[in-house]
């Protein structure tokens, strides 16, 4: 009895077990890395390049002001890190990294909160609050143009492997893994959009869909929701691991914060 071709293809896709061995995980060749910027329309690219009109700068400006301000009974970020973050130039390109004291993988948001609690006696900030977004955007912006370069050896390796596992695991009602769109089908159309390679170098960035600046983790939550999987909580270990995996995967691409995306 003959089954129609689409049913066979779908059956095959749904039934193929996820690759377990490293050799089966086909990665993007380092020479063929393309930023999400290249998949935007010319007008949107121009907006990202416009150092005045790029809406992400509303948060960078605010972050700059917060960085310089000394909160009550405490010192300003600038007191340790230099005026206008002079000493943090290029730092964000090496995140996420393992914090020496906690032994835990830490992204920029986490680092800012560690600084607040350890050195400023302040409460940590929640993800997607204007203050944390602004500080993260400002600090990351100090590395704009710097190529991403992260350490995945030693204590970071287990996090890197965890992120890689997440990337290649199918999830959600659509039963899709990140690699299926972003490694295997980038450049092709999905409705009105062209699928990008799924790098995180533009984040925290301004997404038209959000009508606001948002973190990379917010984008990852949208990715999960996009395949109809339950988004994980902000700051979850899995997302931290994915951030490291994505950074290693994008190694060599420049930081674009504040990026503009759909």
């Amino acid at each position, binding site marked *: 009895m003959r089954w129609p071709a689409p049913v066979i293809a779908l059956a095959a896709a749904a039934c193929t077990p996820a690759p377990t061995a490293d050799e089966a995980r086909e990665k993007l060749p380092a020479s063929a890395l393309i930023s999400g910027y290249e998949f935007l329309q010319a007008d949107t690219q121009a907006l990202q390049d416009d150092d*005045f*009109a790029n*809406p992400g*700068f*509303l*948060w960078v*400006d*605010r972050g700059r002001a917060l960085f310089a301000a000394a909160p009550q009974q405490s010192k300003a970020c600038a007191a340790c890190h230099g005026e206008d973050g002079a000493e943090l130039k290029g730092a964000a390109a090496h995140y996420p990294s393992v914090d020496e004291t906690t032994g835990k993988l830490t992204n920029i948001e986490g680092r800012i909160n560690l600084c607040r609690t350890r050195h400023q006696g302040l409460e940590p900030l929640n993800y997607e609050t204007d203050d944390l977004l602004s500080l993260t955007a400002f600090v990351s912006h100090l590395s704009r143009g710097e190529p991403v370069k992260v350490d995945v050896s030693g204590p970071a390796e287990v996090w890197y492997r965890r992120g890689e596992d997440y990337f290649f695991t199918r999830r959600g009602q659509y039963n899709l893994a990140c690699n299926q769109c972003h490694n295997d089908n980038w450049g092709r159309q999905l409705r009105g959009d062209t699928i990008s390679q799924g790098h995180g170098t533009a984040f925290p960035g301004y997404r038209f869909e959000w*009508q*606001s600046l948002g973190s990379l983790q917010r984008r990852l939550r949208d990715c999960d929701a996009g395949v109809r999987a339950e988004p994980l909580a902000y700051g979850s270990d899995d997302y931290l691991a994915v951030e490291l995996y994505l950074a290693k995967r994008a190694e060599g691409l420049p930081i674009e914060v504040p990026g503009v995306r759909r």
Partner: protein
Amino acid sequence: MSIRISAPDTASRDEIIELKALIQHPMETGYRRNNRGEIIERDIITTFECTYDGDTVFQARFHPGIAANPFLTFYTRATRSGTLEFRWTDQNGQSWSETHSLSVE
């Protein structure tokens, strides 16, 4: 409220100068619903005004169709040295403003 103004510091008399103004604001339309299906109340900036030494040289009225974080590019003639004031007012009467000094030869 985060505001960005782009305006020249100097201009020659009668030169037409380009002004840009950007302000952070969600411009909540009043048409969206939350997870419980309830309407999220409209919350928008309704007017923008640019004055030049107190004289109004440009005004705008915004409706929900203006994108979030409203952006404007407009022009004015540089008549004399003075202060440009950019003011946004929301539907509740709350306003934000910034000034810029212009020197005209």
